[in-house]
């Protein structure tokens, strides 16, 4: 087993809040806490699985790391200033009015780390598309003209355009067919090994996580109820919730 010591993301005592809906403009702003004192480390080069029931705060955590949710207390330290994310919903995260090519190129145009020349951009698009096994001629299509699996690959390609060191993948396969699911997981595994990416992999499918991740964190109601090496947890879960989960998934 590998040794993990260098951290890519270090989260300490994170609380994330959402505004409660205000009933009138005169009412004071109310807040609800979606994450409750979460501490979690993602090591360099690992895939950390984040599992939990729907609404337990997985996406919230991801969004907080990405800086989309700004209302939080606690600390988030990232080694890469500009991490990338694959969104939970492959339909909503690609601009429906633009072609895949435009979307990919736009990512390079707004790159804060370096300037790209036109040729470099085309090169980069080609390389990444090859990496995610997206056929060349698909780049001129609109997202709506792609199948779910292809769209998910475009999402992945987009997240890889700026060569991030950290990738957050929020349920990248849950909306897909078993066969396509398998394909994409393989791709992620491959990329992670090849590019030395640190991946936070969010899912609620315990089987998928088992096959992909080095560590697992189990979430419930905005808290991490269990964390450890994947095998260990599947073999001997300690938290009640983990047990229920494994049981209802038919694993134990």
């Amino acid at each position, binding site marked *: 087993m590998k040794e993990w010591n260098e951290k890519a993301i270090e989260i300490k005592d994170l609380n994330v809040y959402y505004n409660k*809906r205000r*009933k*009138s*403009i005169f009412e004071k702003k109310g807040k609800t806490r979606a994450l409750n004192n979460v501490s979690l480390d993602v090591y360099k080069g690992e895939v950390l699985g984040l599992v939990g029931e729907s609404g337990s705060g997985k996406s919230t955590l991801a969004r907080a790391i990405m800086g989309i949710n700004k209302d939080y207390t606690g600390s988030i330290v990232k080694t890469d200033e500009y991490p990338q994310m694959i969104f939970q919903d492959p339909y909503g995260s690609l601009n429906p009015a633009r072609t895949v090519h435009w979307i990919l190129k736009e990512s390079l145009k707004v790159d804060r780390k370096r300037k790209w020349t036109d040729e470099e951009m085309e090169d980069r698009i080609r390389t990444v598309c090859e990496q995610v096994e997206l056929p060349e001629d698909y780049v001129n299509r609109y997202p709506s003209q792609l199948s779910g699996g292809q769209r998910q690959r475009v999402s992945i390609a987009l997240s890889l355009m700026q060569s991030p060191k950290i990738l957050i993948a929020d349920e990248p396969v849950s909306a897909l067919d078993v066969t396509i699911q398998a394909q994409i997981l393989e791709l992620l595994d491959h990329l992670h090994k090849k590019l030395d990416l640190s991946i936070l992999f969010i899912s609620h499918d315990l089987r998928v996580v088992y096959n992909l991740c080095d560590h697992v964190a189990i979430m419930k109601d905005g808290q991490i109820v269990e964390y450890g090496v994947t095998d260990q947890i599947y073999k001997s879960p300690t938290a009640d919730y983990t047990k229920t989960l494994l049981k209802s998934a038919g694993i134990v």
Partner: protein
Amino acid sequence: MKYILKKAGMMILTLFVVSILVFLAFNLIPGDPATRILGTEATQNQLAMLRQEMGLNDPIYVRYFRWVTGFIQGDLGTSYSYGSVSALIMDKIPITIWLAVMAFLLMFFISIPLGIFTARHEGSVIDKFVVVMDQIIMAIPPFFSGIILTLIFGLSLKLFVPGGFISYKKDFWGFIGYLVFPAIAIALPKITMCVKLLRGSVIEEISKDYTRTAYSRGNTTRGVLYRHVLKNAMIPVITFMGMALADMVSGSIVIEQVFNIPGIGRMLLSSINNRDYPVVEAIIMGIAILVMVVNLIVDIIYRLVDPRIETIND
């Protein structure tokens, strides 16, 4: 309830903005009410005295304040030609309201059955005919359809006397009778839009999953349509109808002119031409209040019809 209070609060705020806009607009434009009242032969002395008397020499915020407080107390000011604006408006408002209400009822009772019918028979000859007619009627300027109605039903078929408006005080049913064709002219474009909207909405709702569920319970087609689809399909139509009611009041500006009906619209127009600004201000404020009240009512109905709204809207 809380929501309605909130909306009403908003409404008052908006009305405040409206009142400022209206007042500024009509008080900053060039033109002197005193000259308007006394005419071209008046001496400077007379003008100055009248200005003093009307308080035109006070600073604008004082005048605004005076106007607004008067307005709240129901004193809409004094017309340059007709005396009390309140009395004048009270006299004319039933005419326009009846006109709008009749147009609204026409729209309601024609477009809803027609919309449902065409949606049910989507693609049939009748449906296609209605859709095309709809588009064509929509393209005719309302005053023009009014003129054509006058020609056909007034001059040729003699179903009404063009220009023969009868006061509601004199003969109520005669009054209503005269308003039928103007109401049709106002309602026509709204009917076409409403049919189009409802048709589209019903067609959309019919293809939704819940209708399949309804069928699976053993519902008849009628049952599905009236018990399940209609209420859903009406939701976008309600907003439209609210807007249409408000539009009908302003649409009457033109139609009252076509049919020679001495209602609010005509009064507005002649007051604008005569620069009788107290009347103009009062009418505009009145229409603004009406529009907002209608919006509020639409909102309430909306909430009654669509239970989702409370959580979806902000």
